[in-house]
């Protein structure tokens, strides 16, 4: 690594670690927790959609599995969160294995894959809101019991650092992808599947690996969400808003890049927050701006913010 990058990373890490002590209000802390949480979700999406080029429109299915997994295991089966969390992440990975298994086995790509993931998320949403075991239409409340074994903490700082750790894990996974054979194969498949096959790449297995990793990361974010809010309901855990949130950051920030999803999430949530500050809490306003930003980025900077920065540095 060149020394300038080392300095940049060190400064970035220090700022991130010091941030909660520097921000004055709870609202700001919440903002950063939210932003980091969705950045981690975007990073998860990016593994499959960015590096692998398989755009999922249903990542809520993995997020929701994580959130509901930890909630159901704690509430219905009395498993402590410390054990329920990894189990829920494993469950998310299994759901990824299943959805990837059927979709990629039957050669679904592009828009077909997007639609099938969307449909799976809807199926899960309907199933979860139909059975009493999963709280039916009311959602589930995780009882308040602030002990580390329950992954509940009295201080919001703990959640901030947990969200930061999620982002860190996601970035580490991305770095691994950029430096490994698995990642090179994944990118090759995105660029040209036929050529990838001719060079000895088992396309099905690589895609499956990507969706399982992506699903596990997304489920981990879902677990965090459930532990943070201590409440899950079908509409917000499995709903299309989460699926959209998962892909918006990477697209705006730069799909298939390591820092793109993080940058995108900060830009999108920062924009929403700025709009709120400027015009008051008008419902829908932040989403209007985010939608417009998406369209404008696609029109003028289709490679995302990272692409724009690279181009600018190339010119400079």
């Amino acid at each position: 690594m060149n020394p300038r990058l080392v300095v940049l990373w060190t400064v970035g890490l220090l700022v991130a670690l010091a941030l909660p002590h520097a921000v004055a209000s709870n609202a700001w802390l919440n903002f950063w927790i939210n932003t980091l949480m969705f950045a981690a979700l975007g990073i998860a999406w990016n593994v499959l959609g960015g590096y692998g080029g398989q755009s999922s429109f249903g990542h809520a299915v993995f997020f929701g599995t994580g959130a509901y997994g930890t909630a159901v295991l704690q509430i219905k089966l009395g498993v402590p969160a410390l054990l329920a969390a990894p189990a829920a992440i494993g469950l998310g990975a299994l759901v990824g294995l299943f959805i990837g298994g059927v979709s990629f086995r039957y050669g679904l790509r592009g828009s077909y894959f997007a639609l099938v993931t969307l449909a799976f998320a809807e199926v899960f949403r309907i199933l979860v809101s139909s059975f009493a075991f999963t709280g039916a239409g009311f959602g589930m409340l995780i009882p308040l019991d602030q002990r580390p074994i329950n992954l509940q903490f009295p201080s919001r700082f703990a959640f901030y650092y947990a969200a930061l750790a999620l982002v860190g894990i996601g970035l580490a996974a991305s770095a691994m992808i950029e430096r490994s054979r698995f990642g090179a194969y994944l990118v090759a498949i995105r660029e040209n599947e036929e050529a990838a096959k001719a060079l000895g790449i088992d396309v099905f297995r690589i895609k499956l690996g990507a969706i399982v990793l992506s699903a596990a990361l997304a489920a981990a974010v879902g677990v965090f969400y459930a532990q943070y809010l201590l409440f899950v309901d079908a509409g917000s855990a499995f709903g299309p808003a989460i699926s959209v949130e998962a892909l918006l950051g990477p697209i705006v920030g730069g799909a298939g890049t390591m820092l793109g999803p993080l940058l995108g999430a900060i830009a999108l949530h920062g924009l929403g927050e700025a709009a709120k500050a400027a015009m008051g809490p008008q419902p829908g306003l932040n989403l209007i701006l985010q939608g417009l930003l998406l369209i404008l980025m696609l029109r003028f900077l289709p490679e995302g913010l990272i692409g724009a920065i690279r181009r600018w540095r190339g010119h400079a």
Partner: protein
Amino acid sequence: MGELGIVVPAVLAGLTTGAIYALVALGLTLIYGVLHIINFAHGSLLMLALYAAFFLKTLWGIDPYAAVFVLGPAFFALGYVLQRGVIWPASHGQDSMILMVTLGLSIVIDNLALALWTSSTRTVDLPYAFAVIDLKLALIPLPRAVAFVAALAAAGLLWLFLARTDLGRAIRAVAKERLGAQLVGIDVRHVYAMCFGLGTACVAVAACLLLPTFYVTPQVGHAFVLVAFTTVVLGGMGSMEGALIGGLVLGVVETLCGLFLGESLGQIGIFAIFILILLFRPTGLFGGKSA
């Protein structure tokens, strides 16, 4: 007889729901089935048309059925402009980016509606809203019957349009072979925009026929998006008669699932069909040719 006494009315109710699905899906058949544009904004445009019909009625007293003749052309123009001015340039003509652009559009439209008209549910009062037709075995609400007949007529007209008019032929040519069509001098961008405009006009017509028995909120489109995609895929991409039959089948499937599995699980049947069709027969049940 007891079973039949429940099932027959359910099937009839399903057919009328299915007619609405078919109407919404006809527009998408043009856009998704023919041009392969994944239009996530389809439901949002439906919602917008429902609001338009609602305000035409409440502000100027224009009956929803009469509004067809206002909103049809207006939404045609809207669709044309959206495709030519936003979707095409922002997606750089690439299929993979189109779905992102239409997703952005739907986010903007949905939340604009939320900001302008709040999230409250609105309905219109119409003298004929509760009129029924007695079919002996079941009572069919009059507006539902109208929608059913209109769905048949719309499917027929669109079929004729695609088969018999120059523009229809141009659309099919572009769908099959974009580059080839360009080479023989077809203005591809214009054809795309016309097709998108027509699809959007269909949505407006569907909205006018839907409003008398339905409600409108900023989120109302979501319920229709996946159902419409399912209808198109089930019916075979780009087939008008397929979309009609597909819509009717889905309406019946939904009501029967609701009847036997309980209300909240009704739509499970639809999504299960959708996933199975995409996996095993992406050319649709009624679309014989491979894509």
